[in-house]
């Protein structure tokens, strides 16, 4: 097998086989986990254990990642409209800078997540090795994305004309990997890492993305009150235990 053929097969693996492994694992495992262990569908929040660094970790991270993902979804769902928007240079620059700020926000958030999870003993106690895998792979994803935004601009335009048809070809079970095989290595690593995240998604706390309590945004406020004597309740429980 010569060098070129080897790389052809490698591309075939990363851009044809991995996406389907990722998508099928995602669909089967998320459904299975929800059916078998619905109560594990949670972000496993540790906000009660520490709330100061938590603000500088979670808020920038979530605003950042949502902005970046929104940009990617626009490119995926409305490629032609995005190209039309980008046809005026100032609009292209606004779109790109917004995405770039989102990526920096995500990185700042991740940096604070690491500080919080390594410095606070209580949070450290509830951090699992799976959490570290998730943090590591998201950091890799964000750094390759930032590198791409700076050195391989303008991603919003070429995403719409190169990555979008590739992703749709995957969905239509007719993979056209020629769209991506000649992209720079960092961009290819960014795509591979994205499919890896999709593969790992059902086995990590990332599943909380699927159960975001969106109605909290518009439902009426609820006041929770205790209608019994808490002292009495505790005493009773204690006495029951003693017996």
């Amino acid at each position, binding site marked *: 097998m010569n060098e070129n053929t080897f790389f052809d097969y490698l591309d075939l693996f990363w851009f044809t086989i991995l996406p389907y492994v990722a998508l099928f694992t995602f669909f089967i495992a998320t459904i299975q986990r929800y059916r078998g262990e619905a109560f594990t569908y949670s972000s496993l929040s540790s906000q009660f254990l520490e709330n100061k660094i938590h603000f500088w970790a979670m808020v920038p991270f979530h605003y950042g990642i949502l902005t970046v993902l929104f940009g990617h979804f626009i490119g995926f769902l409305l490629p032609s409209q995005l190209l039309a928007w980008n*046809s005026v240079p100032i609009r292209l*620059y606004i779109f790109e800078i917004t995405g770039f700020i989102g990526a920096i926000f995500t990185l700042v958030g991740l940096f604070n997540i690491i500080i919080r999870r390594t410095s606070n003993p209580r949070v450290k106690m509830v951090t699992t090795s799976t959490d570290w895998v998730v943090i590591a792979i998201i950091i890799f994803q964000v750094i390759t994305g930032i590198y791409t935004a700076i050195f391989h601009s303008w991603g919003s335009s*070429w995403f719409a004309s190169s990555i979008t048809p590739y992703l749709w070809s995957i969905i239509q079970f007719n993979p056209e990997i020629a769209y991506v095989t000649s992209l720079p290595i960092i961009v290819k690593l960014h795509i591979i890492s994205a499919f890896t995240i999709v593969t790992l998604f059902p086995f990590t706390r990332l599943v909380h993305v699927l159960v975001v309590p969106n109605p909290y945004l518009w439902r009426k406020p609820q006041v929770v009150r205790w209608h019994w004597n808490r002292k009495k309740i505790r005493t009773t429980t204690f006495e029951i235990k003693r017996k």
Partner: protein
Amino acid sequence: MRQLKLKLLTSKVKIAGANLILLLLCTSLFAQVPADYFKQNCVSCHTIGGGRLTGPDLKDLSKRQEREWLVNWMMDPEGILKSGDPYAVKMQKESRGAVMTRAPGMTKPLATALLDLIDEESKLEKSQFAGSQISDRPLLQEDINEGRALFTGTKRLKNNAPSCVSCHVVNSLEGLGGGRLGLNLTRAYARLEGRKGLSAWLVSPPSKTMSPIFKKHPIDEEEILPLVAFLKHETEIDKPENTSAMINFLLFGIGGAVVLLVLFDLIWNKRFRAVREPMVKGNLTK
């Protein structure tokens, strides 16, 4: 507990099974029609009977070199050049140092089919691959202006291809400049040896990144001349590279992030007051 373990094992087996079926399904590669393949991958550097572009005119190719050599060359041109083959070195010299790269998805049967196609086309009085028929008329200022609009995207390309600025830059662009995925095209007109070579490139861009996109969204014939005019103008004025564009982009991003973080702190500056702050303070003073 045992049942739960068994259940987990069964689910993992199911997932692995589904993925295995998928691996078996994903084995199809591409079947190519030689004429389409030639159009997409060869015409930007070669004609059949239309004269030399970057690469040699391929008319009567089989009279110049043995078929086995040609098939090996198409399979691995860079390897043959590295081996110091005298005919390959001679061709490279004639092409002013340009190196032919292995075309995507090239196989021995495809190479043989392409050589058959070249033989058939060589017999014709005028091959369909004799080169693009771009007008020889003088290039005007209007052509340059239209070319600039097409390059920057302010005028969309007819067949919905992305504008050149998505991936390329020319040094005269201001603001944050053009894209940096592809090459700087300031000297593209010179690199591709003028109007004929550049037009052939634009008719069917052979770069591996551009080829799949422009196969479905080709540049319209009427758009090629203005783009050639614009790129010729860029080569002629040959402005120095705008190195501040990337730094400005970085500064806008980092500056914007800092401003927003300060804003977030101001918006949520009461986040530890009311209920939590007195409780936290009370706890600390004990």
